[in-house]
């Protein structure tokens, strides 16, 4: 058991390090580095000497390997560097931006769970086989809808036409209500798909027939017997869902003009502000890795079958 958790933790750290290295290679080893792009503009009137001083202060004049060691070292010490665009510490920018994105994530994740639960119940318990088959297709179709378009239509209908939720001049939780619920739709689609196929495998098993024969109601069978068995496979994609929400925040915050991490990422790409973009990628990978590790560590507690194979494997 301990060995299982240790190996998972080691794997998580390895993925985190690999993704960090990959984002470093992609972003910081550019042919014309970001510092140069920003400061060589003749209108700024900087002498070559001043430019090379600035580059030295960002560490951009050293070899790629030295830069990598430096960036890895300071990131491990919790120092995320400075924004090339504004000169502000990246950690301060993240600190100012994260509450909006956190609220957005809470609303969209909560919304996605409720949507997936409600929809899965309907798709499993609806009368008539053709109706169930039709409902089964909906999540796949929903994942073909671009988020930004869905959100624009939501603004036009919900906010402008029906005047239900304001989107201009709002703050706090009101500001993330409509964006969060719109983002919940594409987030819920993979959750529903994975849960439905797991649930259908469970429902094909003989013990469900036994329960039915003993007179258990369909709702009771679903919630008391199918749900606990179909939940573990669904949990395995929760790390992926975290990444999808953060990536969805880039689009959502652009559409609704929210100043969160997604907006920060979008501006970082526009300004080639690599330190900021790398920090946000690091947050998303760290979230993915931590969630996956937690799910892996909890898996044996939820599913006794895993516990047995682990014990067998260790012996």
């Amino acid at each position, binding site marked *: 058991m301990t060995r299982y958790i240790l190996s998972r933790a080691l794997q998580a750290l*390895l*993925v*985190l390090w*690999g*993704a960090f290295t*990959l*984002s470093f290679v*992609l*972003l910081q080893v*550019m042919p014309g580095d970001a510092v140069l792009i920003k400061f060589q503009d003749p209108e700024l009137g900087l002498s070559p000497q001043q430019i090379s001083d600035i580059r030295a202060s960002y560490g951009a004049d050293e070899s790629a390997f030295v830069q990598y060691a430096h960036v890895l070292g300071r990131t491990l010490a919790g120092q995320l560097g400075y924004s090339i665009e504004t000169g502000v510490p990246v950690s301060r920018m993240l600190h100012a931006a994260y509450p909006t994105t956190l609220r957005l994530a809470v609303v969209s994740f909560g919304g996605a769970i409720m949507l997936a639960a409600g929809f899965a119940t309907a798709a499993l318990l609806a009368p008539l086989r053709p109706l169930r088959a039709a409902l089964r297709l909906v999540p*796949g*179709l929903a994942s*073909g*809808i*671009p*988020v*930004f*378009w869905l959100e*624009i*239509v939501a*603004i*036009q209908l919900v906010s*402008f036409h029906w005047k239900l939720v304001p989107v201009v001049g709002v703050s706090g939780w009101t500001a993330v209500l409509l964006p969060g619920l719109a983002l919940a739709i594409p987030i819920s689609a993979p959750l529903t798909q994975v849960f439905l196929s797991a649930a259908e495998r469970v429902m094909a098993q003989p013990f469900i027939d036994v329960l039915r024969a003993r007179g258990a109601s369909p709702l009771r069978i679903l919630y008391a017997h199918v749900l606990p068995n179909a939940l573990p496979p669904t949990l395995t994609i929760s790390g992926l869902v975290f*990444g*999808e929400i*953060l*990536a969805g925040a*880039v*689009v959502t915050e*652009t*559409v609704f003009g929210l100043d969160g991490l997604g907006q920060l*990422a*979008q501006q*970082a*790409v*526009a300004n*080639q502000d*690599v330190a900021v*973009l790398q920090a*946000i*990628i690091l947050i*998303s*990978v760290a979230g*993915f*890795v931590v969630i996956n590790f937690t799910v892996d560590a909890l898996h044996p507690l939820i599913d006794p079958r895993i516990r047995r194979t682990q014990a067998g494997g260790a012996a």
Partner: protein
Amino acid sequence: MNTALAQWRHRHDVTLPRLLGVLPVLLLVLVALCPGLFTPLDPLAGQTDERLMAPSATHWFGTDQFGRDVFSRIMHGSFSTLSAAVLAVAISLLVAIPLGLAAGLGGRRLSGAILAGADMVLAIPELFLSLSIITLIGPGATHVAFAVGISQVAGFTRMIRTEVVRVRATEYVEAAFGIGSTFWQVVWRHVVPNSLAPALSLATLRLGTAILAISTICFLGYGPSPPTPEWGLMITEGRNYLATAWWLTTFPGLAIIFSAWAATLLSRAIRMDP
């Protein structure tokens, strides 16, 4: 003649649902290659006296802020999105096929290294990966296709490797070794064709994902620049008229959805197993 056709239909298992599944994509290809067949109007030249007109008999999808016909812009814009999606999937396959074959056929060390690398890449959301590549190489239509293609490589590699491992364990591969075929003969005659066929059907499914990813990046403003008709970009430009001209954002979005669904239908139609 008729019997030959019947034989061909039987051999390739051509059924009505399968034919219907191919139709939307054929329509899209036709639109992308000859948009002039569907609309006589110019996608770039606008009529200044016809600005922001609601959909009507002359302008099916209305006109934009420059008096350009939205229907014509959508028809002419299809080439940009669809060719970028095909290019993206082709790039991913080009990189992922050798990697996936190596991971499926190679020794424990090689396959472990490739899979660990894929896991690291898969930890980064695809949008962040492609935006990083855009930061590196700069915006533009071809660059977006390249960025989306590269960001899908890890997923494709895992998929192809799974197929290769499945085929390697089959009895016909064992039998081929039994009659004295060499490793490379078996790989070339059995493993490659039987593992790549399902992978290609999944690749058409990824075409839909690529269309969505490309229009998202173009919506964020890293694709072609105005006045190029591009669906994602059209929605960005239409956002300025959100309250007054709904047709500017609604119709390009429907075009994206139609293409994504068409790709899904195609992948269902050509899937090998029933």
